[in-house]
């Protein structure tokens, strides 16, 4: 039938016209969307010691930012506690000046110890995603429990850096 050929031709034409503007659209996995949302929530439930949030930027530094794709884009420019969130992709411990939150992606196993040592006792919220991250001195560790993403909190590490973690957050943590 003719209309079916027409339809096919229309389909091909549409595909070709779309191809012209084709571009990669990197949708992050659900896991990293969830983790991005956790980061945003943590920013709201954690209090930094007075004076440490100087200026008006709350700098979030991310090792392994590519895994988040566009998931962190929507929080950039949002304000939390009067500070405007900025996100900086980092790859080396030397780039952490001014960071208030440092996310250490699973790929950073090799330099995780260096990062944690460098930030120990400083008012920086360190967040990891490898087993044992909180035991090794990280403040919050995002872990997989069954099919879900939960988190552990190392309260001592938080206190050493002067961070105050909201009680609601502590209640929801898997292990404090």
């Amino acid at each position, binding site marked *: 039938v003719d209309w079916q050929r027409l339809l096919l031709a229309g389909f091909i034409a549409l595909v070709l016209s779309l191809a012209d503007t084709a*571009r990669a*659209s990197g*949708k992050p996995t*659900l*896991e990293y969307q969830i983790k991005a949302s956790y980061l945003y929530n943590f920013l709201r439930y954690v209090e930094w010691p007075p004076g440490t949030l100087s200026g008006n930027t709350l700098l979030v530094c991310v090792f392994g930012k590519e895994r988040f794709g566009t998931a962190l884009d929507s929080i950039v420019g949002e304000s939390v506690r009067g500070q405007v969130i900025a996100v900086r992709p980092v790859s080396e411990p030397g780039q952490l000046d001014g960071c208030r939150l440092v996310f250490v992606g699973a790929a950073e196993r090799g330099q995780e110890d260096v990062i944690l040592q460098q930030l120990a006792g400083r008012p920086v919220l360190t967040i990891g995603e490898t087993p044992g991250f909180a035991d090794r001195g990280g403040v919050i560790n995002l872990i997989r429990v069954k099919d879900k993403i939960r988190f552990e909190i190392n309260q001592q590490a938080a206190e050493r850096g002067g961070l105050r973690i909201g009680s609601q957050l502590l209640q929801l943590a898997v292990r404090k």
Partner: protein
Amino acid sequence: MATPALAVDLDIDIKGTSIEQLMQINVTTVSRQDEEWQTTPAAAYVLTREDLQRAHVTNIPDALRLVPGVEVARIDANKWAVSIRGFNARTANKLLVMIDGRSIYDPLFGGVFWESRGELLDNIERVEVVRGPGGTLWGSNAVNGVINIITRNAADTQGTLVEAGVGSEEGLATVRHGWQVGPNASARMYAQHNARETGYSPLSSHDDARLVRGGFRVDWAAGATDQFMLKADAFDGTFGERLDATRYQDVNQKGNSLTARWTRDGNDGSQTRMQFWYDQFDLDNLNLGESRDTYDVELQHAWRAGDTHRFVVGTGYRRTRDEIRDGPLLGVEPDSRSDALASAFVHDEMTLAERSVRVQFGVKFEHNDYSGAEWQPSVRAAWVPDADRTVWAAASRAVRSPSRLESDVVSPFLTGNQDFRAEKLDAYELGYRQRVAPQVWVDVATFYNVYRDLLSIEGSVVDNKLGGTTSGVEIATRWQVSAAWRLDLAYTYLSLNLRADADSTDTASAARTEGNNPRHQWSLRSAWNPRAGWQVDADLRYVSGLEAPAVPSYLVADVGMTWRIRKGLDLRASARDLFDSRHPEQSGVTTTEVQRSVLLTLRWEI
């Protein structure tokens, strides 16, 4: 590069999702599951929600065409034959099909009424398909494979969905509404109407159909460890069919079901699960009427013992009671029967040699009222030398317990046999998966199956005098060409070699059972996001011819496109079974051919 990131639609609202909500979202479909399934010692495949949505299908059998190694053949416009690793027919009885753990095969004949059984596709989180025996964990009928349809948590289907589709072969209308019923409890309800047009036949077809389904689901997360789920569904459908060259009938099928589940996840990695389900089904067919109630309760506990062992033990009890109305040529004796099925299993998954070796050992004991006690053991092992490669092997025994008809049927051409034994399978499998390049995955599974005590007809009496072997290769490859384009290529080879025992007089069953399966199946699927807000999908499928009854091979293409007009509003257009105006997939007195079709759908999520 200063180009602003394209607005890709994310699955969750990054700023608007609370920690409590984040804690409840399942990530299985995406990540751990990929890892888990990458190293699993079984031929497993998962259809994700995205796969289903991108397939532009409106029913589960058509969705299963996407799964490598699954045979799907449409019999008429409302009936399908679905199988894995051979033995395909409308009465295919060697599959276990479940919706959220509720078995939906009919104990009357051991097969699934695919025309009415199912689920709203928009409610499905994923469809897990395991090819090969799953009897150790899942139980009887899981001989050649397990299809487990898992629906979405009510927390994931909040808001209102309205969907309307019109097409050349069908029309559908869907509404769904999800809401919070408490701080940690969510609910949804839905209803769908689906009308299907007739297929092609030189005779009058009369195989149009109407189906209404609806239901609700409530999920409640009580604290960090306990979860409750309550789900109820109902359907009512009328399915036309041809009886012979001149006579037709409208078959009514309706059913209700209820599933309640409690899950406790311990902090130590243990899990306890208790599930109850009830299923009621009515079939009003001129040939035979069926009314059935089934109750099932299952208890399962999983825990870790050290770093090496993970144990799962479970037990279940099922009672099914039927009333059969005899037709003019087909009946059963007795007319009503109540049967029990009791089962218990233990399963040990060992992780050895610094996680590079996974061994699963399990055995299931089952007692049914037809063939008595049945044991189903299996051993599976995977060697994972590095993150990119898995080699696995398995040896299992599975049984298919007798159906009500095999035991009790009374008809001029068929007489049941109360001594009919369970059909038995010894299955040997070998598989290999590799990430051959950063963006290319290959999954190869092979099997050699040895069957004993298969159904034969001696004179007109049901018996167990057929046996034989089947073998095959299933290859699935995936190439993530770019972030926006994915290609899936699959090939399935299947060979059946059945024969009647020396003392059998059945000369027809072996050839007929062999002849109804394609030897080769190819498919190439493309999923492409040309730009933000657009999805273009295409699927090319080749199925080789069937020998008996003869059906020619076919090559068809399905194409589909989704345009996100604005957030929440999608326009979807698809065309299926292109190339030929029509093609048959099965042959028989009642079959009709699949016609080329188009479907236009508007989907609105508020």
